[in-house]
């Protein structure tokens, strides 16, 4: 009837061990201090139990050295754990560069996941063991939260923007996925499983259910379907920025500010095209795609723009000269020109 009872959670990610260590050390310290307080309290209550109705105890009112000590010592201890905890948090919040990108869309009440290879999953996520996996997440409706207890990770999934989490599974297995942020009637049904697999098994899994195309190629399909290609094709028309070699590069805006062309920026341009217009281009040209392109399609489009370069990890200078090379590596793009340098206007001076 009652199965799998346990008192210690499964630990199956690279972060879990570090989390456990910090948790246990702090737990032991807190327990020791609590027990010390309890012993002192119980001792005082019993040892100084009132013996007669008229008894009056010591009337000592203060002891400055002791009071300073029990103010300063806890504070110093707190700071030690503050720094330790912040350190772990930075580690949890910052994905390694070599992470595989996957995309999550939450909605009432399911998790929709897209792999870069094109696989789509609902309430299940297959990942390889030993490789960091980075999730870029958004919601179609209310706030959700992607929580994998065995990995000690949790990240709220917000409508209207991207949030990110990452983990590296260390043990093959099947782990709970929970929605941790209350999201309506079937909140407790917004659960699923993470399948961490040996790399070989994972490759098999990828090939078994091989989809028609990769996420980026789906994105390319949408790029044409929604008419993006009509303007953002790669000739030197000058009305719209070239999207090659754009991903994660700085973009100079008409306001003189600079933003990074990250996932959020690309998404924002679809919903609010006249905000943050790149230098040299004008507002009022690009149509608003709100309600036309779904969150999942946007993620595919981003994946496509990402594939247009630069490749992750390469730190090439943002000269326009790199663009044609990147363009040449892409197949099946409908734009006529292969010598565009329109992107140079977008990039940082």
């Amino acid at each position: 009837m009652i199965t799998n009872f346990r008192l210690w959670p499964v630990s199956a990610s690279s972060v879990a061990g570090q989390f456990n260590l910090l948790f246990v050390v702090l737990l032991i310290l807190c327990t020791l201090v609590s027990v010390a307080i309890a012993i002192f309290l119980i001792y005082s209550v019993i040892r100084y139990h009132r013996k007669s109705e008229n008894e009056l105890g010591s009337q000592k009112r203060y002891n400055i050295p002791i009071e300073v000590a029990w103010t300063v010592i806890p504070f110093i201890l707190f700071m030690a754990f503050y720094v330790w905890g912040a350190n772990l948090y930075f580690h949890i919040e910052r994905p390694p560069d070599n992470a595989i990108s996957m995309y999550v869309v939450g909605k009432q009440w399911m998790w929709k996941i897209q792999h870069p290879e094109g696989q789509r999953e609902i309430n299940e996520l297959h990942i390889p063991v030993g490789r960091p996996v980075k999730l870029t997440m958004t919601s179609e409706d209310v706030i959700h939260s992607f929580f994998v207890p065995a990995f000690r990770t949790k990240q709220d999934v917000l409508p209207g923007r991207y949030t990110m989490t990452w983990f590296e599974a260390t043990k093959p297995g099947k782990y709970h996925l929970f929605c941790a942020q209350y999201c309506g009637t079937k909140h407790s049904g917004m659960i699923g499983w993470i399948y961490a697999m040996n790399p070989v098994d994972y490759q098999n899994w990828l090939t078994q259910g091989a989809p028609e195309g990769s996420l980026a190629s789906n994105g390319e399909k949408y790029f044409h379907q929604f008419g993006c290609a009509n303007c953002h094709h790669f000739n030197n028309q000058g009305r719209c920025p070239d999207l090659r070699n754009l991903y994660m590069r700085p973009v100079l805006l008409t306001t003189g500010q600079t933003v990074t062309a990250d996932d959020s920026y690309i998404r924002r341009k679809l919903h609010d095209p006249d905000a943050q217009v790149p230098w040299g281009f004008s507002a009022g040209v690009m149509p608003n795609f709100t309600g036309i392109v779904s969150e999942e399609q946007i993620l595919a489009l981003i994946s496509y723009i990402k594939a247009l370069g630069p490749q992750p990890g390469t730190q090439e200078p943002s000269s326009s000269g790199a663009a044609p090379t990147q363009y040449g590596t892409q197949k099946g793009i409908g734009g006529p020109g292969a010598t565009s340098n329109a992107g140079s206007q977008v990039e940082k001076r």
Partner: protein
Amino acid sequence: MAQAVAEAIQKNYLNEKQGLLSWLLTTDHKRIAILYTFSITGFFFLGGFFALMMRLELLSPTNWLVSSETYNKLFTMHGTIMVWFFLIPSIPNTLGNFLIPMMVGAKDLAFPKLNLASWYVFMLGGGVTVYALVRGGVDTGWTFYTPFSTSYSTTYVVAAAVGIFIAGFSTIMTSLNFIATIHRMRAPGLTWFRLPIFIWSMYANSVILVLNTPVLAITLVMVGVERIAKVGIFDPALGGDPVLFQHLFWFYSHPAVYTMVLPGMAVISEIVPAFSRKPMFGYKAVAFSSVAIAALSFLVWGHHMFVAGESVYVAMAFSFFSFCVAVPSAIKVFNWTATMYQGSVSWDTPMLYAIGFIGLFTIGGMTGLMLAVLGLDVHLHDTYFVIAHFHYIMVGGTVMAFLGGVHYWWPKISGKMYPEGLARISAAIVFIGFNLTFFPQYVLGYLGMPRRYAAYPEEFQMLHVLSTAGATILGVGYVLPLCYLIWAWYYGRGATPNPWRATGLEWKTPSPPPAHNFEVTPVVTAPRPYDYEAMKEELQLV
């Protein structure tokens, strides 16, 4: 002639006027305190009933008792009622209302009519919230997170928000009244550093409430505006920002959780010296720690949003301040314990509650530290660990303090003694039931059981069953005092003016006190508070 004198002496605030109207139109702070006690007791048992239904549902991993819709409404109404209609008004509006004028040697609060008005406003707010409840309830959680509350929930969100909005004015009225009274109406000679810690804590508490309640009010108005008029404030589909709501809500609500526990600390800071017959150890540190908590409580709201997409640097700042606010709380625990050391410690019921409070508050505080550690909060956030943590503070802390305070001042309020033996047994039942209910929830949370789940994986069942078993014991522990205190009101042994031989001004007047508290305005000459030394003769202590 002698008979007339005896009658004159026996005239007190309870029997001076008779009839329902004399209660409903009273401006006596003591009677208003009793009106509030009736109200919040009703709300407490209503909120407790919802909790019991939740615990029963959670006996099984499946929806065996109620549907998910109903479960969601149960936890929402439990939270809403307990937070706004029990915890925040609990100690301030009952014990605070009764005691603040007496502790400062005044005849009443500064604005007696405002005090009565605040009760009516409170009842109106409560009425509107109960209306939302009987019409079908609310399912947003007491936190009203957007855009769920503004664009997706189909329940009575606006009605509940209006109820809370109205009740907020009652809170502000009472707090202003307390601040004015403490500033302007202290008896001759009662300087700030001669005030009981109760007054210091209630003062800090009132300042927080005056500053943060308006923020809640405007936030609820914005929720209503977005929900009704579709003005984009929080919902990104309308051009809003969903996290903005969380910032506004927790800017109110984190200080608010301190307003739930500071009054508890106020009560404990009176019980511990009285039942140890010792001055409050480190009086000034304890007094200023209340002020420090009030100030720092406004700087920690972001610790509710460590996984909501906050910048890591912002998170670091909020984590830092969360550790800082733990220091004054730790100081209080150390000082209460040190007050007992070398005292003359009695084991009467109020002291049992105080000892329970210190133990449970310490556990709640320690686990609060764990949640303040950034890397740990990522896992623990929005799990049962958080639920256990704040119930250790709110129930293990505030409710224990409330019960302790009610027993301590019961002779003053009612003029009767409560049955000591039975009271000790129920204090023990509350302590055991509480720990059995909430300790397993720490383990559940650490294992990864998320909050607000009507159904759950079956590996969590054992701990949920334990917790539900504890809740039934806890329920008994709460019903017992209700019964024997009502009994004692009518049949209890008569109380002397100062049955505990305590030092506060409230004990220098008959039990129950006359309508204007003191026959002669007291003059304070003792240089220090809790001055047993100076009052040795008077209290017949050796």
